């Protein structure tokens, strides 16, 4: 099945190449390479306000002085940043007339994942009613959200329509010179999402399936900004369980979250970028900076991620617990197979009094992959009564993969209580045999055992995605045992 999926992905890719970028190249694409002129041109084409151009240029100047980080437990091939295209208008996908024209194997994967038919159509590029559907769905969503004063739109639109809000919060969590990849993103980001939840409003729906359809083509440098005012709440889901292929190898996204007094933001990610083939060729590099700041007292940010894709993952969704009595949570499942590499974890920075953080990380390594957890818990001098509990578990399938844990603790306040638990285990042959003896075959047994292992994290996902994520884990591991 793993090879079937590879084949399927190959086919999907080939199709995209076949039909993409064949018209009006000068119109849609800037030449390769990065310099100030390219950045000015990006900003001009996107009709951005002046402050955004300044933001981009400042980031670019910072970036020039920085070097690609080398501290992670990753082998990253050299990337030639002058050999990339930094602006391309969304490419056209081949339009199909009905689901019957979609590759049966792709459909089979969608069915396995349990993706609703309408979404399948959009993902597979089927035209006609799917587009009408999604437009009408969007309209309904928009009306409901607008009634509550919620803003949910593309980042470009936000920059034009709500420049004051964007100006106030953009870069306030991840400044333009934060790190190499964040600086690069700040200089050249393509598009992304903007969410604003006004005072006292609970967003009545998961900002999810809408999002999945909405931002299919945001490109390789995605920028997301979520602001939750006092007493507001939103649950946001990024990503998609369907296999995603992109001609851009490097993806460097930035997500910023700001919560004011008593606000709560729950951010869930399911990431399934193309991981490369079985020999480790190809695959996406996913170098992401995600950070939230609990600015207001009693506010809360919760990150949940299920990472199964990408050739290389470099990602540390973090919480800055600035307000008093704030809470940060990080729930993670990172699965690596074949030659995938992941270095992922979190940072919990305790600044306010009575702040609490919880870290639950579940790594699964199979094949010849390398999977690292890297986490920082920092308690500053003034952060009285800070609490942290971290649990980092690693599960190994086979004996050619690696699991590593790098916990960092910086405690500068004697009242802090910090606990760290770590376990490493292997799926036992005795567990698999036990399942076999009850009539469950080995692949199903591995799926069952793995899903039991990650249950604590999966339970944090919105219901429908929890189901998809479970299936995704099972599919990602097919062929890795036995």
């Amino acid at each position, binding site marked *: 099945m793993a090879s079937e999926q590879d084949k399927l992905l190959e086919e999907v890719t080939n199709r995209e190449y076949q039909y993409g970028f064949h018209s009006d190249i000068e119109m849609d694409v800037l030449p390769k390479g990065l310099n100030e002129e390219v950045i000015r041109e990006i900003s001009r084409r996107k009709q951005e306000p002046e402050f955004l151009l300044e933001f981009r240029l400042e980031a670019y100047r910072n970036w020039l002085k920085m070097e690609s980080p080398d501290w992670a437990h990753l082998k990253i091939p050299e990337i030639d940043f002058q050999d990339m295209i930094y602006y391309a208008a969304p490419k056209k996908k081949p339009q199909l007339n009905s689901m019957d024209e979609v590759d049966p194997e792709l459909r089979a994967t969608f069915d396995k994942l349990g993706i609703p038919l309408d979404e399948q159509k959009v993902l597979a590029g089927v035209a006609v009613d799917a587009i009408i559907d999604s437009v009408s769905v969007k309209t309904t969503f928009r009306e409901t959200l607008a009634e509550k004063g919620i803003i949910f739109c593309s980042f470009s639109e936000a920059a034009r329509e709500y420049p004051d809000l964007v100006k106030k919060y953009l870069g306030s969590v991840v400044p333009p010179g934060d790190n190499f990849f964040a600086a690069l993103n700040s200089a050249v980001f393509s598009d992304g999402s903007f969410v604003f939840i006004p005072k006292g409003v609970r967003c009545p729906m998961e900002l999810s399936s809408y999002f999945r359809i909405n931002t299919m083509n945001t490109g390789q440098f995605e920028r997301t900004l979520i602001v939750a005012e006092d007493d507001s709440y939103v649950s946001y889901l990024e990503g998609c369980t369907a296999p995603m292929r992109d001609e851009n190898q490097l993806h460097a996204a930035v997500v910023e979250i700001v919560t004011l007094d008593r606000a709560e933001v729950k951010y869930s990610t399911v990431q399934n970028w193309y991981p490369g083939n079985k020999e480790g060729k190809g695959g996406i590099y996913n170098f992401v900076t995600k950070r939230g700041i609990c600015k207001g007292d009693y506010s809360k940010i919760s990150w949940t991620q299920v990472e199964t894709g990408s050739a290389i993952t470099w990602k540390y969704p973090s919480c800055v617990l600035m307000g008093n009595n704030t809470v940060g949570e990080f729930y993670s499942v990172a699965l690596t197979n074949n030659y995938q590499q992941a270095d992922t974890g979190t940072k919990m920075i305790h600044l306010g009094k009575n702040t609490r953080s919880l870290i639950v990380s579940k790594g699964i390594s199979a094949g010849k992959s390398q999977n690292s957890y890297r986490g920082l818990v920092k308690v500053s001098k003034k952060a009285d009564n800070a609490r942290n509990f971290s649990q980092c578990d690693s599960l190994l399938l086979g004996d050619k993969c690696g699991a590593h844990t790098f916990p960092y603790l910086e405690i500068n306040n004697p009242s802090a209580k910090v606990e760290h638990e770590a376990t490493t285990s292997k799926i*036992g*042959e*005795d*567990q698999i*045999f*036990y*399942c*076999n*003896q*009850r*009539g*469950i*075959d*080995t692949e*199903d047994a591995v799926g*069952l*055992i793995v*899903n*039991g*292992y*990650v*249950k*604590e994290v999966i339970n944090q996902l919105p219901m429908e995605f929890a189901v998809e994520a479970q299936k995704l884990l099972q599919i990602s591991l097919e062929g890795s045992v036995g």
Partner: protein
Amino acid sequence: MLKIRNLHAKIEGKEILRGIDLDVKAGEIHAIMGPNGSGKSTLASVLAGNEAFEVVEGSVEFNGKDLLDLSPEDRAREGFFLSFQYPVEIPGVSMTNFMRTALNEQKKYRGEAPLSASDFLKLMRDRKQLVDIDSDLTNRSVNEGFSGGEKKKNEIFQMAMLDPKLAILDETDSGLDIDALRIVANGVNKLRRPDNATILITHYQRLLDHIVPDFVHVLYKGKIVKSAGKELAYELEKNGYDWIKKEME
């Protein structure tokens, strides 16, 4: 139902089973007894298809099929059940989910429709009552944090759920207090039917006070050296295994 002929098996080069012959017919209960290291648990593992053991000679026929030719899961799906001596913990996997997956896989193999959620839960309730097991057990993860006795009771519950044609209970009585022993024995007795069969592997005669076998076999150094009716168990209890060892040498 089960025909074992001249079965030889080894682990890590060491021959443990050295020519087992055994016939089990529908409706029968057989007890296999014997001193430590005689190969009782190996026999159970080999029949279940544990790959740690290598069959070097012999044949096993199960309901007309070559058992040794089937994968462990297909043996289970054909109606072969092993109650493990040391049941394995599977953290995070609920008993409900585990049993539902197992049962539906078996049904699929037999070309039957899977049970609906409500029918399945009804069956769970019914089987729990039948084998007299706390409902608490089935709300937990598979064997996780179970006491030794709870694990054994859970094996009998799974047997009741899957309704096998042939069940082998590998020292299910060891480590049980008298109440747990009674629950296990009652479960086995209630599940007994003219169309199924049970093999009890045990060290002690006390289980056989509660489950009355039709045949008792003594396994010694990888061979069945004595077979008789239930009276053999009493003799073994009284005189130990030494007289058999002497008889053999």
